[in-house]
């Protein structure tokens, strides 16, 4: 088990254990929360009195933009990932997540990107266009300076990290459950992680596509959002809110999950209506993708679309109501004792229900005509986010504190902090509803005394300081040294979930041995289980090879399939994160050459990371896990975790691609004639040829995979496949070029070029993977029985070829039927 020990001293930063990465992730997210909280106090101080000059207009605009940005992107979403990385593996009786280095990579991306975005305010260069960055204000470099580029590129970088974490969590929940934990026995928390990670996978890519378009317009003048050149500012709003509204539930659902996990322990009863909760969570996830337009009710859309999106927005109240009442019913049938986590959960209920009630009001279109962009909405969104996210997270901090630190928090300080936070919050935000009704719009750095808003604003400011004091008390309690306190009991809450079958003090390997699970609340319903686990009587209590090993099971029934070896500490993930960060940061400052060099470093670091990962040939074909369970030590194809990770990645990737397709179709509906009169689309014959060449490359790869038993054939196929791929991209680009398309002239030209660019970049990645497979074959890391890398490459190319065909259909065939050619 010593294999799990993280390095000591300064080398500890190279650790990849989920217990450490999760803790760092959490602390970093809370640090950004503190930073954004200070910005909030600056805002409140400025607005305390009318005509205040505490902050300048310029600085205020940066402060409110960064407050929203940091709270959303650097706290609310990362905290979900941080908590999941910290507790999910132990809750699943797994030793770690399936890709520990990916967790570490994601963390370092998040930390580097977050510091970059937040640090900009020290140089008076923070983004100042509001956290939803509407063009044409944000697409005009003359009005919104480098801060907007920092926002676009810095956040794209962080979004990559978020998607990486989402992939890891999905595979973790699906494949790393303990034997016997069928999907219907899975703890509710895991269900929510699965649902939310899936939402991230579909919600973030449209924003990344939008970021790409907006940055191309800012940096190179490509026409996407400029109405004079056939673009449309509303395209950004669609792409942003297709991300932005699911994002609200991406923040909210994990917090319900935390309460649903704590509540059984706190009220001594299983959750009533387990399957209702699961179905409702899935229902919310689906609905959340169909109501983004309620952020756009005042943009002048036709009444019929307003009615549709209003209905969808109202409908989401039903599955949300079911979840809340399942938890209330649990409280009813249980015997709850008042504790600090329960206090925070109660605060969450009071605040969130109020936010939900104003939510169904603003979903009524005419009401929103008044409420939209006023302080009423500011109040509403803080009630939902703080009630739906911050209170539950604080409850979770108090609940899982012993799990992470082996110490307990003070009950007295906990109550003090709760009441200060609860009172401060309501004093701050309840009056804001009235401020909005009196006509105060959001995002104003000052207001005149004659407006009559000062009494309410002063009240809000006083409340915000009380709120901050409550958070400071909690922070003090969390951070104060507790050296003299005796260690907390292993399971202080009498909880039913597996993470509490733990050793005190905490060990780096997670669970001592991996048990068979046959119930939803194993520590309650399987008596003696914790002791058996701790005595190492179950599976995989040690590894003869001193490797980091974990059991992988199948998706539905959790039958053990094989033993996965996972990699240990390494600096290569930090190097990869730093160099990828450098690519984005250097591109912000238009240092293109340096950015390309950083990209090369990233490529080398990533290849080294993959090459030295634990996926090589195993020392023995099988591993005896104890109790007669013998499992293979290798898997490839759709049994392996890597294949699933690739599959899920490509789903997300295809969603971003769909965002670009959406842009094309959106422009078509706007213009009627698209391509515009006088512009001819690229020649269909050339597009045919390019796509056929890409298909040829894909075919050679499939042939290599089929011919693995004949090494020379496989080697030749892998080595030659890049040739048609490269030629295909050249032909596609040539088609756009020879049609005379100029991306700075019209939205059509720009959209065709960005699609071509997208395919080109993906083919470049595909060629790297082909050559990587070839090198693995050559180095004899792959053979007929061990072909995971090649099968993952084929999977990537399957998606790529579908995207290429769709691009061909869109650019080459669609104008023929839509009547676009003059």
């Amino acid at each position, binding site marked *: 088990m010593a294999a799990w020990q993280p390095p000591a001293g300064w080398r500890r930063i190279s650790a990849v254990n989920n217990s450490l990465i999760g803790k760092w992730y959490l602390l970093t997210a809370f640090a950004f929360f503190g930073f954004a909280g200070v910005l909030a106090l600056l805002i409140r101080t400025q607005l305390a009195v009318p005509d205040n000059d505490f902050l300048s*207009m310029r600085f205020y605009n940066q402060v409110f933009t960064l407050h929203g940005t940091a709270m959303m992107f650097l706290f609310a979403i990362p905290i979900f990932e941080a908590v999941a990385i910290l507790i999910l593996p132990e809750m699943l009786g797994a030793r770690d997540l399936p890709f520990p280095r990916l967790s570490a990579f994601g963390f370092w991306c998040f930390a580097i990107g977050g510091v970059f975005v937040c640090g900009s305010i020290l140089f008076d260069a923070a983004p100042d266009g509001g956290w939803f960055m509407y063009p044409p204000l944000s697409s005009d470099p003359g009005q919104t300076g480098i801060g907007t580029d920092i926002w676009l590129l810095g956040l794209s970088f962080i979004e990559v990290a978020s998607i990486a974490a989402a992939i890891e969590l999905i595979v973790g929940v699906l494949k790393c459950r303990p034997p016997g934990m069928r999907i219907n026995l899975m703890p509710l928390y895991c269900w929510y992680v699965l649902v939310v990670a899936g939402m991230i996978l579909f919600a973030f890519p449209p924003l990344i596509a939008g970021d790409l378009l907006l940055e191309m317009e800012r940096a190179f003048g490509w026409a996407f959002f400029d109405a004079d050149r056939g673009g449309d500012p509303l395209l950004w709003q669609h792409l942003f809110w297709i991300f932005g509204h699911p994002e609200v539930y991406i923040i909210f659902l994990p917090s319900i999950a935390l309460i649903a996990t704590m509540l059984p322990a706190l009220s001594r009863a299983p959750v009533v209506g387990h399957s209702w909760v699961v179905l409702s969570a899935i229902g919310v996830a689906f609905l959340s993708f169909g109501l983004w337009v309620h952020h756009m009710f005042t943009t*002048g859309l036709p009444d019929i679309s307003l009615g549709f999106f209003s209905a969808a927005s109202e409908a989401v109240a039903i599955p949300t109501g079911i979840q809340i009442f399942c938890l209330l019913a649990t409280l*009813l049938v249980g015997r709850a004792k008042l504790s600090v986590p329960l206090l925070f959960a109660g605060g969450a209920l009071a605040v969130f229900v109020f936010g939900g009630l104003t939510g169904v009001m603003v979903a009524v279109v005419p009401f929103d005509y008044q409420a939209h962009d006023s302080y009423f909405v500011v109040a509403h969104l803080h009630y939902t986010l703080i009630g739906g996210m911050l209170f539950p997270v604080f409850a979770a901090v108090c609940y899982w504190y012993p799990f992470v630190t082996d110490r307990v928090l003070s009950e007295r300080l906990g109550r003090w902090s709760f009441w200060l936070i609860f009172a401060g919050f309501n004093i701050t935000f309840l009056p804001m509803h009235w401020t909005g009704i009196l006509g105060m719009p959001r995002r104003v750095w000052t207001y005149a005394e004659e407006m009559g808003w*000062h009494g309410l604003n002063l009240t809000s400011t006083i409340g915000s300081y009380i709120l901050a004091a409550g958070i400071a008390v909690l922070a003090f309690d969390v951070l104060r040294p507790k050296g003299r306190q005796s260690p907390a009991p292993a399971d202080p809450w009498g909880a039913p979930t597996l993470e509490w079958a733990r050793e005190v003090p905490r060990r780096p390997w997670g669970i001592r041995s991996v048990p068979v699970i046959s119930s939803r609340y194993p520590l309650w319903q399987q008596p003696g289980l914790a002791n058996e686990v701790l005595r190492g009587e179950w599976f995989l209590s040690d590894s003869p090879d001193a490797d980091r090993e974990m059991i992988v099971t199948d998706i539905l029934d959790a039958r053990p399939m094989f033993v996965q070896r996972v990699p240990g500490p390494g600096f290569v993930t930090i190097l990869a994160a730093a160099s990828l960060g450098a690519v984005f940061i250097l591109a912000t400052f238009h240092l293109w050459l340096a950015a390309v060099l950083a990209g090369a470093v990233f490529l080398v670091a990533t290849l080294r990371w993959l090459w030295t990962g634990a996926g090589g040939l195993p020392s023995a074909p099988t591993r005896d896990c104890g109790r007669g369970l013998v499992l293979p030590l290798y898997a490839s194809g759709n049994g392996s975790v890597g294949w699933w990770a690739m599959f899920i990645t490509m789903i997300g990737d295809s969603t971003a691609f769909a965002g670009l397709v959406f842009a094309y179709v959106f422009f078509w509906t706007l213009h009627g004639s698209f391509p515009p009169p006088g512009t001819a689309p690229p020649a269909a014959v050339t597009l045919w040829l390019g796509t056929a060449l890409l298909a040829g490359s894909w075919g050679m790869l499939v042939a290599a995979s089929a011919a693995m038993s004949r090494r020379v054939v496989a080697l030749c196929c892998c080595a030659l496949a890049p040739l048609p791929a490269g030629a295909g991209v050249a032909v596609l680009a040539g088609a756009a070029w020879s049609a005379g398309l100029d991306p700075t002239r019209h939205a059509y030209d720009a959209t065709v070029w960005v699609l071509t660019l997208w395919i080109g970049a993906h083919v470049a990645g595909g060629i790297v993977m082909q050559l990587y497979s070839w090198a693995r074959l050559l180095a004899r890391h792959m053979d007929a029985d061990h072909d995971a890398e090649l099968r993952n490459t084929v999977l990537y190319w399957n998606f790529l070829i579908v995207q290429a065909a769709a691009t061909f259909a869109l650019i080459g065939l669609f104008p023929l039927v839509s009547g676009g050619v003059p």
Partner: protein
Amino acid sequence: MRMPKHIWLALVGGLAGCDGRHSWLAGAGAEARLIEDLFWPFLIGAVAIWTAVMVFAVIAFRRRPKGSDERIGRAIILWGGGVLPAVVVAALLITGLLTLRAMASRPSALTVHVDAEQWWWRVIYETPDGKVFSANEIRLPLGKTTLLMLTSDDVIHSFWAPALGGKLDMIPGRTNRMTLTPVRTGRWGGLCAEFCGAAHAQMRFEVVVMEPDAFRDWLVAESEPAAPSALRMERGLSLFLDEGCAACHTVRGTQANGRVGPDLTHLAARGRIGAGLLALSDANLRRWITHTTDVKPGVRMPSYPAMPPDDLDQITQFLMALE
């Protein structure tokens, strides 16, 4: 379902000392009143539901059940979590859609174009005799429905006069239509509700609701060139032209025909200057000219801090004569 006005004013007015010029609940327009009719039932319903849920939560917490009664739990989930929200949101949706239809189906008697600029409002009235240009103040006839054609050339703005009705965005490349039907005379506040860059916070306007006859007379006056008494103030006029004001501002009847800034032909007939920012007065005009960027940071108009006092007197007198 409209609550007596004095109760509301006592509640909020006492708290904030407000005059309600920007309040949704001022009831100055038919559209605002339709929305206000939604507000009070919404508020009462929300408070009732919230209280019921909280009382239930406290009971659920305190109750010490003898055995496990999941059956009661399931009934609570079904009725409290499923049926109750479904009924409530269905009712909300239907009233919302009915209100939307009521707002949409009003024929208009007058068309006014409002074009948002960073950070002021160009206002153009359509009359049978042609277009009448004005800025930063919109006058509307009482009891008549006016169609507003909302546009923007630079960035996204949003037109909002809360006392009269809801808001609607002004988006480059699009023309959005909105109707307002004032039912109370007076001067009402308006502002830009969509963040539009530096001086967004100070992009305001006024809506002046007048009796129809008075409105007709005013519109005729507004269509005239500048007042002859102002044009006779040669020194002030020549300063206005020489200092560069004319490059951006129009004063009809003079050589000043700039289109970048607000039309000033009848500046002195308006209530406020600087896009709704300061009350019109001799002192405020001087302050605006000499400290423009202090009063409104980000504004496109340059300050004239070094203008000689005599020149400032002359130019202010000229502007104050533009009635």
